[in-house]
């Protein structure tokens, strides 16, 4: 096995007096899709922000593609971020831009392509996520599922090596959620990208993950295949994946 794509090594992060990450350690291999699960407010989004370098750990290291993010200057960090595409929970579409302009946003920022070339690429990426004929529409005219697809097309626009998914199915009905899960699996198969998703939707996690990591009290409690997590003997993991209110995880 080669060098891991992403490593979190003993990462600590606090906000004021509130410790969120308390020694989180996780290795994500090239080409795999890792799904990080955990309750609301346990620090899943904080982990994603550390991976893209939007947050710096108080202690510990975040290594992406062999580079310790803490040692990188802003310009090098910007360069490294080109490896990333991100599907945001709220899709992050700019209301004032048309669909193709949203998809081509990073291309406009980071390349010297003309508008015509950007639009052509955007149309291709949109077709890749199953959207045709919507490039000139505005985000307000799209359904939640279509917005997520546009968000995914935009995440793919720069042909990233790593795709991050922030709660990819939150707010979608089960059928649309399944369609998004299918797309994520297809992207991985077709583009061989490394994926990191955070979610508490276990149906989604089982479907898209090669491995699942459970985050609890600021640490990665268990990492394993979907089957291993589903049949975990750890009472905390078991309670979470079965969605039971009875167990060691306190609800109040």
């Amino acid at each position, binding site marked *: 096995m080669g060098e891991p794509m992403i490593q979190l090594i003993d990462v600590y992060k606090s906000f004021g007096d509130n410790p969120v990450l308390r020694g989180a350690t996780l290795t994500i291999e090239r080409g795999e899709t890792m799904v990080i699960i955990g309750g609301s407010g346990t620090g899943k989004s904080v982990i994603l922000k550390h991976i893209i370098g939007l947050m710096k750990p108080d202690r510990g290291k975040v290594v992406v593609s062999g580079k310790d993010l803490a040692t990188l200057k802003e310009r090098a960090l910007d360069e490294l*971020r080109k490896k990333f595409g*991100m599907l*945001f929970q*709220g899709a*992050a*579409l700019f209301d*004032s831009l048309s669909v193709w302009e949203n998809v081509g946003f990073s291309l*406009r*920022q*980071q390349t010297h392509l003309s508008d015509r070339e950007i639009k052509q690429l955007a149309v291709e990426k949109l077709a890749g996520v199953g959207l045709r004929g919507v490039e000139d529409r505005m985000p307000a005219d799209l359904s939640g599922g279509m917005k997520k697809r546009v968000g995914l097309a935009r995440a793919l626009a720069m042909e990233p090596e790593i795709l991050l998914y922030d709660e990819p199915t939150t707010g979608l009905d089960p059928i649309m959620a399944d369609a998004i899960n299918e797309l994520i699996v297809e992207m991985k198969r077709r583009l061989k990208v490394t994926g990191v998703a955070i979610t508490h939707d276990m149906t989604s996690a089982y479907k898209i993950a090669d491995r699942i990591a459970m985050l609890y009290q600021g640490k990665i409690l268990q990492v394993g295949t979907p089957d291993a997590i589903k049949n975990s003997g750890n009472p905390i993991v078991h309670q979470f994946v079965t969605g039971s209110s009875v167990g060691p995880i306190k609800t109040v």
Partner: protein
Amino acid sequence: MNFFSVIRWLAWKDLISEMRSRETISSMFFFALIVILIFSFSFSMDQQTAKTLMPGIMWVAFVFTGIIGLGKSFLAELQNDCLENLQMNPIPRGAIYLGKLVSNFLFMLIVELILFPLFVIFFNLDVFDKLPLFVLILIAGTLGVSAVGTLFSAMTVQIRAREVMLPILLLPLIVPVMIGAVEATGSVLSGESVTFYRHWIELLVVFDIIFTIVSFWVFEFILDH
């Protein structure tokens, strides 16, 4: 996109969004209109009293109206994750600040330019020969409020009590702008010679320059933390 294209794009994006929703400008406009109506019907004033009171009433209305707009400035970006999307792209943080400053400044100025004639009508003032001076004071005062307000808007957007925190943090800092703008407006209304109130306009300009530069530099830290 280069630095200036980002500023232009961000300001344009906000203006287009506002033109579609008219959410911010309408709420700013109606709030200020109510202030004008209440004050104009509360006092029966001769023209001399109006000249004394109008600058204070006008700037209170403009600043509180501005706070409504400033409070919404980063909210749309936060709610649908666009702020993180901007951060993920290699966009200079300072350009994000300046883009937002331009749009906030324009929103405030547009509302002020609509309301100013209403102040003149309701308070029965004769200002037409001094219009360029009024516009200069409006621009300088509004820029000062927007410069600090844009920074604090970014700082408070993630706080649950942002509607409370923004004015609490902003108002003490813009006291010099308020004093300068009210004094300069009052002096122009009274028909004083420019030499008597030039220092107030200079105060506004110095405030604008210092706080725009400081906010520009601090913004990166605010956004990343």
